[in-house]
């Protein structure tokens, strides 16, 4: 079932292209059906997963170079595929009001989703890279055409950063292909090859940072806040929800799996960068005036936890990182949905000082409740998915570098502060709001699709928060696979 997630998405793109212009209703309906089918395929695939690594499709693609169309899934892929499915469906629900060139909007949207599914299911390094690039291009158009504040700038910055990262990755994997001399780009074959330590020493940072740029690694994170702010709601939900995960996933799947010795050499520096990201992102979020910038920087901070979990190189930290990818995807999606769709589309301002006087808590009680829940989830409060994820990352970090774990704890505190501040200013300002005042400037009520989307996301973060085992049972055994021998157990090298 799982490969169908990719195929369905691209079939949806084709269907949308065949649609005559100016039929936004039909366009969004097709998009929704496609996304729901994709999610259904993902869920069915997860339920039928036999455990361990499951090869899905393997066909020769460019035999001359040994490149295969090789799709497969282990627990980590499954978790991220599920995230993509949920994020894509809710993203469409929150774009229900897109009227301007709706057909193209949803076509780009589905192309992005298809690319993301592809990355998470590829077990051929070259194929993974192709899907990775495929995901970046629609991203650019989504922001540049449908974006808001300084959209050309945001889109260009995102594209440039991504391409620099991609170039680094490409150099790294081509070098790995040549050095291994195996005539295969399958992840399994490359992971088995003992790359010489001197090679790993420079190839690892190249590929890792190349991917991690997209995960918002400090100091290469600056595209993230501007990109998030410029993007239309659904795009920022996807950007924070799944695209940033592509970077972290690539770093784990390619850089860390292929070059474990390189990771050993650089882990302290990378751990430090991750923690700086956590604390810096949170601190900057604390002083933002634009509501969306607060959430944008909070994403940098939360992705810092993912990267910190990755470089701990122990099962607890790594599973925490994967869980955090999932959790942040859900929570960030929810936060951006509130800020971009529920608030900005109605008030046409994101300035926290202006919002403070609007009494949104009374005007939009549903949005206020959603943001309150999402905010507490984002703080990492127990009961929500962020808590077990950050807890595991911190446990893993305690093993590896206790000092950094303590600093990351500091980041959590600042996280509490900026979330409370945003909550206070946006929805629960102290300004007196009279009923007449509210009636004088009525805001459109929250629509049904928005409510459904919010309920799905809140439900997911609660379920995973209370029973993280649902996902951990998929994630943890994956690290026992031979693929991770080199990374976790010293392996054959």
């Amino acid at each position: 079932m799982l490969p169908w997630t990719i195929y369905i998405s691209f079939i949806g793109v084709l269907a949308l292209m065949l649609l005559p212009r100016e039929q936004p209703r039909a366009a969004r309906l097709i998009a929704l059906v496609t996304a729901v089918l994709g999610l259904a395929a993902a869920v069915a695939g997860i339920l039928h997963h036999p455990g361990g690594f499951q090869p899905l499709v393997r066909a020769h693609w460019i035999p001359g170079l040994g490149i295969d169309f090789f799709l497969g899934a282990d627990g980590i892929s499954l978790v991220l595929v599920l995230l993509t499915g949920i994020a894509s469906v809710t993203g469409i629900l929150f774009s229900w009001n897109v009227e301007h060139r709706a057909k193209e909007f949803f076509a780009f949207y589905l192309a992005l989703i298809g690319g993301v599914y592809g990355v998470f299911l590829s077990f051929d390094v070259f194929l993974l890279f192709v899907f990775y690039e495929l995901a970046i291009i629609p991203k650019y158009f989504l922001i540049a055409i449908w974006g808001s504040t300084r959209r050309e700038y945001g889109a260009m910055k995102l594209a440039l950063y991504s391409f620099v990262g991609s170039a680094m990755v490409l150099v790294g994997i081509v070098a790995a292909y040549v050095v291994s001399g195996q005539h295969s780009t399958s992840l399994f074959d490359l992971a088995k090859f003992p790359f010489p330590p001197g090679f790993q020493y420079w190839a690892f940072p190249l590929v890792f940072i190349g991917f991690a740029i997209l995960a918002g690694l400090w100091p290469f994170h600056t595209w993230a806040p501007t990109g998030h702010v410029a993007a239309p709601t659904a795009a920022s939900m996807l950007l924070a929800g799944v695209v940033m995960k592509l970077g972290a996933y690539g770093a784990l799947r390619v850089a860390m799996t292929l070059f474990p010795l390189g990771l050993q050499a650089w882990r302290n520096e990378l751990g430090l960068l991750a923690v700086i990201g956590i604390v810096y992102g949170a601190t900057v979020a604390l002083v933002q005036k634009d509501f969306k910038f607060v959430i944008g920087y909070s994403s940098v901070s939360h992705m810092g936890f993912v990267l910190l979990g990755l470089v701990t190189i122990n099962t607890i930290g790594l599973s925490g990182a994967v869980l955090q990818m999932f959790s942040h995807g859900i929570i960030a999606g929810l936060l951006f949905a509130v800020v971009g769709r529920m608030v900005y589309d109605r008030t046409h301002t994101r300035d926290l000082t202006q919002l403070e006087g609007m009494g949104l808590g009374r005007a939009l009680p549903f949005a206020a409740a959603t943001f309150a829940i999402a905010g507490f989830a984002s703080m990492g409060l127990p009961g929500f998915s962020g808590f077990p994820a950050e807890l595991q990352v911190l446990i893993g970090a305690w093993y590896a570098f206790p000092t950094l774990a303590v600093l990351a704890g500091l980041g959590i505190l600042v996280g509490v502060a900026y979330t409370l501040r945003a909550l206070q200013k946006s929805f629960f300002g102290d300004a007196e709001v009279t009923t007449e005042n509210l009636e004088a400037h009525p805001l459109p009520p929250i629509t049904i699709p928005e409510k459904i989307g919010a309920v799905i996301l809140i439900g997911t973060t609660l379920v995973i928060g209370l029973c993280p085992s649902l996902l951990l049972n998929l994630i943890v055994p994956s690290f026992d696979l031979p693929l991770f021998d080199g990374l976790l157990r010293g392996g054959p090298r």
Partner: protein
Amino acid sequence: MNGHPLISIVTVTPLVGAVILAFLKPAHRRLAQGLALAFCLLGLLHAVMLWVNFDAASGQLQFVERANWIPSIGVQYFVGLDGLGLLMVLLTAFVTPVAILASWKIDHNAPRYYSLMLFLQAGLFGTFTALNFFHWFIFWELSLVPAFFLIKFWGGPGRSAAATQFFIYTMVGSVAMLLAFLAIYQAVGTFDFIDLAKQGSNGTLATALNAKYEGWHWLTRRQASYVIFGAVFLGFAVKVPLIPFHTWLPTTYAEAPTGTTMMLTGLMSKMGVYGFLRVLLPMFPAQMRYVQTPLLWLAVATIVCSACAAFAQKDLKRVFAYSSINHLGYCLLGIFAAVKLTGTEGQWGVEKAAALNGVLLQMFSHGLTAPMLFCFTGFLEERSGGARGLNDFGGLRKVAPVFCGLMGISIFASLGLPGLNGFVGEFLIFKGAFPLATWAAALSVIGLLVTAIFLLTVIQRVFNGPLNEKWAAMPDLDWRERFIVLPATALMFIIGLCPQIVIGAINTTVTQMVDQLKF
């Protein structure tokens, strides 16, 4: 217990109520009141069932439920009760309905208010019954969120600042504690409070911590366990609070709506003391012993300074807020005195048992008295239209004799008059603490004295003296209000006259705690 998961039922009942109430329309005020009360009484009923079925003679954990939750990091759903937990569950089950009745006049979005109160209650039940750190921490933090919103939306004029201050302060403690527990998990591989208590009392926990973190930065071999201890200590000290971590409390108590303040002072402050007894005392006896003198100084400072501060306040809510800090100071005095390293003679065991019995009793009786004081202040505020200054009233005895009589009983109970509940706890604490930590107990007597002075001042200024003409028409307590305060007042007498009811339930637990402390 016939296989009924009683503890889970107790915890889930208010949660169900809270969710139902959250979906009611603001207009359904009556329905919300009825539902909230019904769920509280259901919780109380189950708590009483726990009490009836509790075997006080057995030292075992009772009503235990255990199931794997997140096996990969050793997290279990693990609940159970001993005497300490039972006492706190009973207190929570009793105080919440009273607090809800005392908030009967809330009319701004009432269903949401009651929903949050029930959430808070669920958080408290969970905290007092969970025995696995992860599980416990969920509820510990869960109780924070409803309290934040209750203060933020229904509080007084300075509510926003108060709510934020309260939240951030508590979070600082919580994060420190979380990191400490991660360090502990790292060293010994378990989150289980019972396991950790065992390892703590035989010293393996400290050894493991020291071995694990030796050489981490400046830490030498024996310091690591002290750093970890300090971080856990911070979490609980903020919650109780212990001076100098108390600055959030007066503002919070003064700004919160009356019903919420009752929950905060009666129950949430007990979470801190409970943590001292459940976590710190069994897990870090040697560490507490090592810093016993500074800890005792802090306890004395808490008792004396807060009493003096209460004396200086002009706002009744602030008077009672500081008095609340003062009374919890006695609990900490008892706990810190009990960690003293003593010989093997049986006499010391008796003194420690007395001190700890006193601590538990004091927790319970403060949990009754302090909410009542705030409840009465709330009644006064409702009548005076917000005025609650110490000097705003005078001679109320003439116009509202029932009010003054009943509030007088609470004040005297708080003051520690023999025959009322406050006396027994404080007496036992001092009986135990005098031989164990003579100087600290002696200095704390100053606190008792100042408490008497400021509480009598309240009686003097508010009840007696010439009648302030402004309040000549003040109505006395009506039947609803009398009904609210009656059960608590009756309990004050009952516990004051036969404390055996409570001590009987907790004595075995206390004996075990003393055993774990090792001589």
